[in-house]
């Protein structure tokens, strides 16, 4: 018989994996997320200057209008252009290219699921920065009433439908080519993201045709709305983003997931309190383990704010990578880092 002699009650050495897990669960999450977002922002806004090329099928707003700065393209831009092909081509040989492009997008997407929104998206990061400024200025933030929330939540699906149908109408010859990439034209990222690389060429209204005039005016309008909305409402634009809706429709097989153990939930409401998107189900639903809702951006702030061991967790391919713990909650509360 061999082995070490153990005394009852004596502290036992924790295995390395446990140490790593405890360190991860007790991390200063907001700081970690902030720097991760900064890193992704630099990559997606300035990466092109370093010659990085991630392709044209990224599931996040690596804005196509950011010329040389972008290291890849937001998939919505090529998707809209492809769908605007004449139908004979789109439903012919070019359809293979469209499907291939979608496949590449999907492979990118399933890695992070909607974590692309919560951690990677440059426009989301900008909104978080505006929120940080607002907080420093002492301005209070706004929340939608339940009725308003319900009324507004379908807008992203409407935008997604229009984003797909208008290009198809172009391909069929019913809609003017000036309406190509309709969502890109009204997306605030078109004006804001290139500006961070010193390119202000999108801050214009195009009078060359009625369609262009309408779309570019709408783009300026949404950008103004984005700026004022983000100042008073956390993640204002994410609520209307068709990419978010697109993500949700594809999220079932994603590797990165937000999981809830309802049996451990006390419905204290901390998770709802920190949720930028006001998702009530995160606190109220104790039956469904797959708790990621369509508005969720998987920012994991709810996990960091949860005081119950294992009630909320983020998993990657079934492996837990970050979960709520009492120790982690207390540690973060002491630092005031949960909101």
């Amino acid at each position, binding site marked *: 018989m061999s082995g070490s002699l153990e005394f009852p009650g004596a502290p036992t050495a924790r295995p390395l994996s446990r140490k790593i897990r405890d360190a991860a669960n007790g991390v200063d999450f907001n700081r970690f997320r902030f720097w991760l977002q900064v890193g992704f922002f630099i990559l997606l806004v300035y990466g092109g200057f370093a010659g990085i090329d991630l392709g044209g099928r990224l599931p996040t707003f690596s804005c196509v209008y950011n010329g040389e700065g972008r290291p890849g393209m937001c998939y919505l831009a090529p998707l809209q252009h492809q769908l605007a092909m004449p139908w004979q*081509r789109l439903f012919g040989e070019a359809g293979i290219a469209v499907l291939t492009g979608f496949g590449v997008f999907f492979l990118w997407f399933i890695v992070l699921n909607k974590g692309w929104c919560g951690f990677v998206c440059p426009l989301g990061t900008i909104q978080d920065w505006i929120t940080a400024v607002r907080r420093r200025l002492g301005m209070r933030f706004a929340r939608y009433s339940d009725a308003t929330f319900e009324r507004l939540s379908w807008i992203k699906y409407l935008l997604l439908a229009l984003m797909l149908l208008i290009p198809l109408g172009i391909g069929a*010859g019913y809609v003017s080519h000036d309406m190509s990439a309709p969502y890109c034209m009204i997306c605030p990222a078109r004006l804001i993201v290139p500006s961070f690389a*010193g390119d202000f060429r999108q*801050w*214009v209204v195009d009078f*060359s045709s009625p369609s262009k005039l309408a779309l570019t005016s709408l783009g*300026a309008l949404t950008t*103004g709305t984005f700026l004022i909305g983000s*100042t008073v409402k956390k993640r204002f634009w994410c609520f209307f983003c068709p990419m978010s809706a697109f993500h949700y429709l594809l999220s079932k097989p994603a590797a990165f997931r937000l999981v809830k153990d309802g049996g451990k939930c006390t419905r204290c409401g901390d998770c709802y309190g920190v949720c930028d998107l006001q998702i009530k189900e995160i606190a109220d639903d104790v039956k469904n383990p797959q708790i990621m809702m369509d508005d969720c951006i998987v920012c994991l702030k709810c996990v960091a704010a949860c005081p119950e061991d294992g009630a909320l967790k983020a998993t990657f391919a079934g492996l837990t990578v970050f979960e709520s713990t009492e120790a982690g909650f207390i540690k973060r509360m002491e630092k005031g880092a949960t909101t």
Partner: protein
Amino acid sequence: MKTAIFRGVFPTFVGASLLAFSASPAFARSVSQAPKSVPSAAAPAPAAGTPAPAASAPSGPEPVAAPANPPTVSPIGEPIWISEASPWEARRLGAGGQRPPAADHDHAAMRSESAAAASPNAGTAMSEARNAEAAAEAMVDMSTHSGAKTLWLRRGDDPATASVVKADGQVFTLRIVGTDGKSWESQFADNSKGVLQAKVDLPDMGFYSAYLQSSAAVAGVRDVTVAKAELLKANCCSKRDVDLYRPAIDDALPIELVREHKPDEKVMTRILSGERAVYFVRSFGAPVEGAKVTIQTQEGWRKRAFTDAQGRVEFTLVRDYFPDWSDFNRRKTGTFLVLAEFERPEAGNLGGVAYGATRYHASMAGRYYPAPYDYQSYAWGLGIVVGVLLVGGFGVWLYRQRRTRAYREIVFDERVA
């Protein structure tokens, strides 16, 4: 009215925005790239206005060897040039039929051929499109950057009226040179409609130059003509390979027109109305001073200049598109033609005809488009954003003020009641 608004407000905004822009990465990039202009893989390029002679190119006034395919297109009289845009396409997207049509070709026959040649895939589906104008624009846009090129040989110094050269049983050899120095030949031949036409498939992304060289001696003067077309195969995803932006140059030619590529030129860069167009005249890779260069647009604007010691000549393309708003087409494509010529006292004998002097002629066509500042307004864009911020900000403030105002208790004086 629209352009008046642009002109009034645009400079004001630009003046303010330039201050911010000058500190931006894009500004720094544009400055740092400036010395790298006009590179060449085939030969040192006329970068920043100074074309470097190629080491392998002959530099002396050697008589030009007759091409393998002896040309019969006379360089005397009206100039010969290569057109990537068919004449009817240029008129449809350009002058709008205001100028007289070309005289010696079959419009109807070639119109149908143009649609097929411009983009075979697009053409069939587009023919059923409801929006015919948009379909035509799309075809032209695609053909501009497609690797499958259809070229026409045209005669005359006015792009609007230059006729398409008839075949008359003739075949001319067209030589195509890439930026990597590789070259191959194609042919201008009868397109079955009695017109000379060449079809070229460009293998890789990037710029290519197509040359048609001819020579003839008449009345004691030898005329050497090099008609050139700059071809481009590109797509939006090829933007980062700087080799793609370089012009293809052949330093073995007795005369060549080279368009200076902008320092920040990309494969999707267009020549715009109101902007400068810079050309170099070179002979065997060396700059030619004092060459006469003429530019003419299809709207009839013409200007003449002479090259400097670097063989450089600069034109500011005229703004010649002022339609009503309802007629404005930002994809309106104009064609301009650049002609260069100089003479040297080179004597010799060509085909049994003695000559005492040699005149060199070069031609090169280009396309130009309306400039964005003719139809885009920063002031309106910024005005809308600022307006929304002001109105939205005031609305939020007002809303919050009303929500946070202290509750006023209503007190009834029961004694009064």
